[in-house]
């Protein structure tokens, strides 16, 4: 009775056939799936055929007496095509006798098959490259997009396919995923099957064996070649724009100096006409001042045009901040300005150009002090802060001085803009921005007139590391 129930309950379609293809017994599942079977041949029930199938697996079982697994396509009782996999076992009446019956346990796989096909299509057609690589870095699967660009590459080493390398790439994200089982991202330059450059952003994700070891890594890459090209064009356009701005700015600075020289000359000659010594002196000083301005303009200009790559050294950012505080402490306190540094506890060392960052901080702090002097309020202070943001090293210089007018804010990073009358060359913030950009960072300003200003230099750690690596190569 129990066996009878078991026979009906197993999640398989079970049928027993004799050597003449007659179905002699079948369970409930089978009946529900293929319909009535009594007094019918197996081929009529499974496949609605009139004669035995050419490649009947049960014939094999009868002949060889060993169980086999086979798959086949049949038709269910609603007339739908159905894929199924069958385990067929030989049954003997007498031990050692001939096989009298075949026990066929089949399970339909139609749904699974459909899913498989869908996944295959998805896998092939998604607009990115997908590969699965094994621990030996050989590609075990690759989707169509990948094959189209890199060729048919199953079994080859990924580094050979992606980059034509003979050995593993340094800084391989897949290696990291094999090591720590986590997702990693990076951008890489590869070579297509026609030898063309392919820039791609790759993410690697683990396929686990059991719960603790990574058996395979899936690499999903997006082609960013077009994006890189655009980026390059934008940089080039910006560079040309900057050259134009620089020339215009230079002309303006020279015009200002000429105006001062013109004035000096005029006042000296007036003084000479009138025999007014005081006037001659005044004019002469004006001439001297403007000659001096020419010198400092040339100096600033040269330092602005100096070298393109920062000289990176591993340094402690907080030491730089301390240096600046020491440098400006006296000047600030003489003017009644409090100068303070705020340093986060978790500041890590970073590859920076010490001279460059020193220049940036000097510019920002001296601007902040000037802003404090310009405003009329008391209790002014300048704060230099260094902190770690989201994968970024951040320097901040803030003051509660006169603040920056909105209109001026639009112009502060443009060439030669100065609000300091004759005192500045207008190159300080421009040079600062240039140095920050050369470090792969950016500078932001937050200010409202009358309520101080905050300049923030952000350096993405990743870019610093990349630059550092490049510099060492």
């Amino acid at each position, binding site marked *: 009775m129990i066996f009878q129930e078991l026979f009906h309950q197993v999640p398989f379609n079970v049928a027993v056939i004799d050597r003449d293809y007659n179905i002699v017994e079948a369970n409930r599942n089978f009946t529900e799936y293929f319909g009535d079977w009594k007094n019918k041949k197996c081929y009529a029930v499974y496949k609605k055929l009139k004669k035995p199938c050419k490649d009947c697996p049960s014939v094999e079982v009868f002949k060889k007496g060993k169980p086999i697994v086979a798959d086949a396509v049949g038709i269910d009782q609603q007339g739908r095509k159905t894929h199924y996999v069958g385990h067929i076992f030989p049954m003997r009446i007498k031990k050692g006798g001939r096989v009298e019956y075949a026990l066929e346990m089949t399970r339909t796989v139609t749904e699974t098959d459909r899913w498989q096909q869908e996944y295959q299509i998805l896998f092939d057609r998604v607009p990115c490259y997908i590969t699965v690589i094994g621990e030996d870095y050989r590609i075990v699967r690759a989707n169509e997009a990948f094959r189209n660009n890199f060729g048919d590459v199953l079994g080859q080493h990924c580094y050979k396919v992606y980059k034509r390398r003979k050995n593993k790439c340094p800084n391989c994200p897949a290696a990291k995923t094999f090591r720590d089982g986590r997702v990693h991202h990076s951008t890489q330059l590869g070579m297509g099957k026609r030898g063309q450059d392919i820039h791609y952003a790759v993410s690697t994700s683990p396929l686990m064996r059991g719960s603790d070891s990574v058996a395979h890594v899936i690499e999903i890459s997006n082609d960013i070649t077009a994006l890189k090209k655009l980026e390059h064009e934008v940089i080039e356009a910006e560079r040309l724009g900057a050259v134009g*701005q620089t020339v*215009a*700015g230079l002309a*303006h600075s020279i*015009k*200002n100096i*000429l*105006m*001062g*020289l*013109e*004035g*000096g000359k*005029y*006042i000296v000659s*007036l003084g000479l006409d009138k025999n007014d010594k005081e*006037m001659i002196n*005044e004019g002469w000083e*004006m001439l001297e*001042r*403007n000659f001096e301005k020419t010198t400092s303009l040339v100096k600033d200009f040269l330092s602005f045009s100096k070298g393109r790559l920062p000289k990176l050294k591993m340094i402690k950012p907080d030491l730089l901040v301390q240096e600046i505080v020491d440098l400006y402490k006296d000047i600030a306190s003489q003017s009644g300005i409090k100068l303070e540094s705020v340093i986060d506890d978790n500041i890590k060392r970073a590859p920076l150009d010490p001279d460059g960052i020193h220049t940036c901080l000097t510019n920002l702090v001296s601007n902040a002090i000037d802003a404090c002097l*310009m405003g009329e309020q008391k209790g002014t202070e300048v704060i230099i802060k260094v902190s770690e943001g989201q994968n970024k090293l951040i320097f901040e210089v803030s003051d509660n001085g*006169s603040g920056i*007018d909105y*209109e*001026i804010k639009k*112009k502060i990073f*443009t060439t030669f*803009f100065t*609000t*300091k*009358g*004759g005192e500045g060359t207008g190159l300080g913030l421009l040079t600062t921005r240039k140095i920050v950009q050369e470090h792969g960072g950016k500078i932001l300003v937050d200010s409202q007139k009358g309520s101080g200003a905050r300049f923030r230099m952000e350096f993405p750690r990743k870019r610093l590391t990349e630059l550092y690596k490049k510099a060492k190569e």
Partner: protein
Amino acid sequence: MAENAKKTVLVVDDEADVRNFLKAALIEAGFNVILAEDGNIALDQVKKQIPDLISLDLVMPQKSGAKFYRELSKNKEWKKIPVIIVTGHARDDLGKSDLKELTMSGPGIYLEKPVKPANYIAAIKKILGMDTTEEEKETAEMVELQNDLKNIIDDADPETLKKLKELMNNKKK
């Protein structure tokens, strides 16, 4: 200058050298001079005493020339004060749009730094309708013509520029 009652000019510029230079030239020509180093101070000066003319720089800290001019325009009395612009930013991004706004709405004359004292004084006298010597008249007219030409050249297409150049070269010969 004795026949002219002494006129007062307010010189607004953030650079001390420029202020002192223009002041010397104006005093030499018989003007009273008031100085201001930005728009805010200039506004205070105007409140104290309405000048006969304002000599205005465009790009300055605190309050720019354009902002100062907008404030002037809001007041009926102040609106009438003639303004001459003396700027180094006439043709760059920092001053161009401001200058356009100002020349459209009011002061017609601007001088580009570096200015020569004679040109400066001649232009101011012309605006104020003061008696001028023949020489000054000529200079003022020349400054105006030069300004007109500069504007034409700034807006000209390449073809016109070529013709203009040919024309001027021929004249030289």
